[in-house]
């Protein structure tokens, strides 16, 4: 059993090791190791296209994670008290949002938004007051990236938080109400501490999803380039150690974030125990 686990861990980590190893390749061709060098990190970090793509990805992922955990949690809390046909409609929408492949969301959003924008832009041009300066043009970009990523991640947060609420001890909420706590106070002191790990998990999953997503972004990014889009087009042009250097940095960032999240979770647990 233990041997099996070790084998799976090797399977999971050897490819990452290969990426890291070849990021230090002094040679020009990625698969031919010619001595140790960090020059590709310098190349990646001084490449304005890489830095632009990274900024775009971080902004989009962070905004997506905030919106998804906020809206997802509030929807999960509200849905507790929604019954009957309305509940079934929401469940169906959550189900479809999660079920549908990212690629379908990508193309559907692309053609829907382009069609809507083609309709709205002339209208906007006609009614825009001169005094307010240049007429804005609706286009694919940050907003469409964030909006499309938030759909899936919000549904994910709803499911995660709802599962946590379902597993929660109802008696505590009732006890709190019996002891004359206001609903808001019950939420802050009873519900929130119990669902907090689920919200944080939802936030982290949302960030990850958005930061990693290639396929939806590929369709709805417009003239923007996210990091995965940049890497994909680089691979298409040829395998270089620069891609490995970017990959290694992405791995490093993720690790830091994950440790940070773990620290947060533990800190909370201790504080709760101390009280």
């Amino acid at each position, binding site marked *: 059993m233990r041997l099996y686990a070790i084998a799976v*861990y090797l399977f999971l980590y050897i*490819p990452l090791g290969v990426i890291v190893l070849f990021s230090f390749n002094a040679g020009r061709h990625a698969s031919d190791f010619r001595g140790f060098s960090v020059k590709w990190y310098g190349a990646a970090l001084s490449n304005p296209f890489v830095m632009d793509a990274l900024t775009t990805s971080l902004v989009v992922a962070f905004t997506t994670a905030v919106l998804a955990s906020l809206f997802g949690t509030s929807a999960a*809390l509200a849905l507790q008290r929604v019954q009957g046909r309305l509940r079934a409609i929401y469940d169906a929408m959550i189900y479809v949002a999660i079920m549908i492949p990212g690629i*379908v969301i990508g193309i559907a959003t692309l053609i829907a938004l382009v069609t809507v924008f083609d309709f709205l832009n002339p209208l906007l041009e006609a009614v825009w007051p001169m005094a307010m300066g240049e007429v804005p043009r609706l286009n694919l970009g940050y907003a469409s990236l964030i909006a499309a990523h938030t*759909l899936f991640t919000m549904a994910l947060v709803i499911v995660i938080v709802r599962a946590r609420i379902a597993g929660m001890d109802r008696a505590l909420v009732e006890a709190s109400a019996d002891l004359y706590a206001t609903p808001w106070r019950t939420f802050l002191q009873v519900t929130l501490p119990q669902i907090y790990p689920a919200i944080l998990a939802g936030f982290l999953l949302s960030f990850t999803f958005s930061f990693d997503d290639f396929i939806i972004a590929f369709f709805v990014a417009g003239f923007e380039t996210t990091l995965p889009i940049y890497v994909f087009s680089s*691979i298409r042009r040829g*395998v270089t150690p620069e891609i490995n250097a970017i990959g290694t940095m992405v791995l490093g960032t993720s690790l830091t974030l994950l440790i940070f999240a*773990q620290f947060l979770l533990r800190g909370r647990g201790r504080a709760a125990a101390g009280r």
Partner: protein
Amino acid sequence: MQGKWINRLLLTPATAWFLVMLVLPLVVVVVFSFGERGAAGGYVPAFTFDQYANLPARFTAFKNTLLLAPTGTVAALLVAYPLAYFLAVKADPRFKTLLLILVIVPFWTSILIRTYAWIFILGGRGIPLLLELIGIEGVRLINTPFAVLVGIVYGYLPLMVFPIFVSLEKLDKRLLEASSDLGAPPFRTFRQVTLPLSIPGVATGCMLVFILLMGEFLIPALLGGGKVFFIGNALVDLFLQSRNWAFGSAVAATLVVVMLVTVSLYMRLMMRGAGQREDVSLL
């Protein structure tokens, strides 16, 4: 009365998102799938079934997807289950969190970069070179269905392990003790107690992996070398290269229908087997 308004307020953003970013785009896809292609690409309004009649033109993509997505899901499940079991039941509690994090960390790096790693490993200077050293020559791994399958298992393993781990972790360990106290050998305890109770996790994991695989584009694009063509690859081609929105919409609509039918059949089977609805209340 006040509670009702708060509830509505809490639901507003989610509702808006579902309507504008999910319902509207899907309606557009369905409408466009009955339209025609414009002379310069895009869409021209019409009402015709021509696009659907033309679907057999992409038969290979459908066939590859419907063969490799279930195969990949089962392969990922077979690799993931023992690991999830080890983590939830056998692992030292002190290291459990760390070990779980180690499974999830690869999932934190982009699937693109993880798939890219396999271009090295399966490519000419990777495993084939090692095999040559021990005398096995002429093995080609990259750009084959096998490479795509390896990429699938590698990419989706964490997603499969996690829900199974959660369901096994929730499982009351006293049930296992009770079973062994009553004289059941370990395998029987596993088959009659552990396995049935972990079915919701298995179902969730399979569902997640299968859905993502149905729309997979990257893994076949990078490891299949254009020879293993999925529906996802056909869609990218139709929307971004040939700009045939009407036919592309028909392919996408068909993909969604095939997927929903398969998944709902599958879930129904799973639920009957487990007799437990709670974890899949989503459906």
